[in-house]
């Protein structure tokens, strides 16, 4: 089994195109609004911006079923949105308000929303990988054909957790789609300094797992690659590694001065911003009109503003939250 680029496929339907574009724009708007509020001192919060990486959740969001599962990371607000987590829950959790996904107890790094299939989000790099294997095992045990997607960065592929999880999924031939969002950096360190290989997709070879390198800035490419992997997984064909190559426009955390980032590099990446790129493509190919696209742009901003206002109007968590959702039975538990 060698890793190659995923097969190119037929163009997507207008409905899918609309979904792809909408997810991208909505994610970017949410990210933008959060960074704006943080930098202006409107609220205290931390995010790890996903701006630049939106084509990936757009693609898998459209390719996956709503009962398929997702595991993601601190840099996964775009993934949450792509998988259908309500904006208020996302923003509310980032701001630590009562309307957040976990009423402020989890924080940005720990948002879950099982109703949307988001079963885990980790702040520990690599930790979600083995958990995804367990989620897929449960699907098999239940006789369900749902699949599990797990997102992580390039840096995460250097962790022991990644290796153990990949090996287990391959050994048990479970329906996991390992989605590496390769943004070429881990915090301040470029990928070339932490691994010696040309492409992360090659790591699939260590497990005899299909592994593909995908243009992670092309939502249709991601959509097709994930669709194919999901089909294989549902049919009992086991896991797939997808390396989606992309870029991180805003650095590691909101406010990161990116002193380590060569200016030309960032400029080149921004010039290839996947959102205007896809917008142009949709216009050029006539799949969606300027009016439709503008409406999506505006609706997205509107939705983000509305959600943000709802969050800002919401109170902080009740003090008694500390005594909720800990052990179900508190008898004999230290106070």
């Amino acid at each position, binding site marked *: 089994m060698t890793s190659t680029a995923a097969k190119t496929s037929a163009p997507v339907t207008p409905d899918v195109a609309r979904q792809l574009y909408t997810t991208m724009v909505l994610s970017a708007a949410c990210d933008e609004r959060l960074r704006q509020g943080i930098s202006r001192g409107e609220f205290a919060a931390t995010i790890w911006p996903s701006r630049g990486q939106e084509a990936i959740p757009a693609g898998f969001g459209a390719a996956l079923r709503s009962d398929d599962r997702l595991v993601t990371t601190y840099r996964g607000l775009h993934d949450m949105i792509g998988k259908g987590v309500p904006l208020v829950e996302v923003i509310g959790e980032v701001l630590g308000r009562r309307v957040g*996904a*976990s*009423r402020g*107890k*989890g*924080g940005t790094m*720990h948002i*879950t*929303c*099982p109703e949307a299939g988001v*079963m*885990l989000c*980790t702040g*520990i790099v690599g*930790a979600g*990988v*083995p*958990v*995804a*294997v*367990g*989620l*897929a*095992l*449960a*699907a098999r*045990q*239940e006789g369900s054909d749902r699949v*599990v997607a797990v997102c992580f960065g390039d840096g995460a592929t250097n962790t*022991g*957790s990644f290796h*153990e*999880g990949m*090996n*287990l999924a391959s*050994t*048990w031939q479970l329906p996991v789609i390992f989605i590496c969002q390769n943004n070429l950096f881990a915090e301040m360190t470029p990928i070339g300094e932490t691994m010696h290989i040309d492409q992360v997709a090659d790591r699939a070879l260590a497990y005899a797992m299909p592994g593909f390198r995908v243009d992670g800035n092309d939502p249709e490419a991601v959509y097709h690659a994930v669709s194919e992997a999901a089909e294989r997984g549902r049919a009992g064909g086991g896991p797939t590694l997808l390396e989606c190559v992309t870029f991180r426009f805003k650095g590691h955390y909101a406010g990161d001065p990116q002193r380590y980032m060569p200016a030309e590099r960032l400029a080149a990446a921004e010039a290839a911003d996947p959102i205007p790129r896809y917008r142009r493509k949709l216009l050029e190919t006539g799949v969606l009109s300027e009016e439709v696209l503008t409406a999506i742009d505006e609706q997205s901003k509107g939705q983000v503003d509305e959600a943000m206002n709802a969050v800002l109007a919401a109170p902080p968590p009740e003090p008694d*939250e500390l005594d*909720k*959702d*800990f*052990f*179900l*039975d508190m*008898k*004999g*538990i*230290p106070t």
Partner: protein
Amino acid sequence: MTTAVETKTMTFVGAVNEALDEALAADPRVFLLGEDLADPAGGVSGATAGLSTKHGRDRVLDTPISEAAIAGAAIGAALEGRIPVAEIMIMDFITIAMDQIVNLAAKARFMSANRTPCPITVRTASFGGLGTGATHSQSLEAWFMHVPGIKVAIPSTPADAKGLLTAAIFDPDPCLVVETVALYGSRGEVPIGRYAVELGTADVKRQGSDVTVVAYGRAVVDALAAAEHLGTTEGIDVEVLDLRTLVPLDTDALRASVGKTGRAVVAHYAVEFAGPGAELAARIAADHFGSLKAPVRRVGARFRPIPAARGLEQAVYPSAERIAAAVRETMTFTR
């Protein structure tokens, strides 16, 4: 221990096996995973012998040597409502699964505000006393007491082994059950059929009026031997309180027993310094301030890596003799 139910004589390891067998039979969501669990191996110490043959290899899963992934896969399955029982073969190896257990399982319910609780059971075994040296002999339960979000059970008898494990498996929160391989061959009366010991209930294994020995696991056996000896030869009437679980902690039983005797010795195979006994001694000293007749004495493993050579190993661990000596000291103490 007297019980109204029908019992039969079993070994400790047989009782563990029976608890697993009955849990597998009782609920189709229960499954086991770990290294070498399936037949013909049936577990390195026979704890899972016969179970894969009876319940199928899809209920008793052999894993690669991947402790992080064993825990992670259990976590993922638990997030979906399955009931996984993961085995970490020897407790020293749990060092490799700490991130998954501590950062994910123990925090899952709280961080998600009850949306994704994670009631895994992790079975592991203390190998101390078998001459296998410093990396195969540790008792690390103190670490888990200190992690809010996971229960810790450590049986000392076959009946408790069955009852605590059964309770842990069906508990709605994550549980760690520590078995003691040196006790695997010990025999006792075990209730027939489904049998659970409520987590957080200590058990007075021997009534006494002069001194309370607070212990759990293997130290209970030593404490009972010490008590027997002291009772028959020195007229000291020792009560042996078996905590059975460290979290939840049966503080009522602890207070009642020491309130009655006015003297306490705490014993365990974990290292004494900063061990479970530190919490217990601190608590007893504060609860009975002014009424204790002697300082609380602690008997734990000496503060050394565990040596392999038998004589040295014995000198590090607690024993009936060391417990008896501590009891005597509390009896002869004068301010």
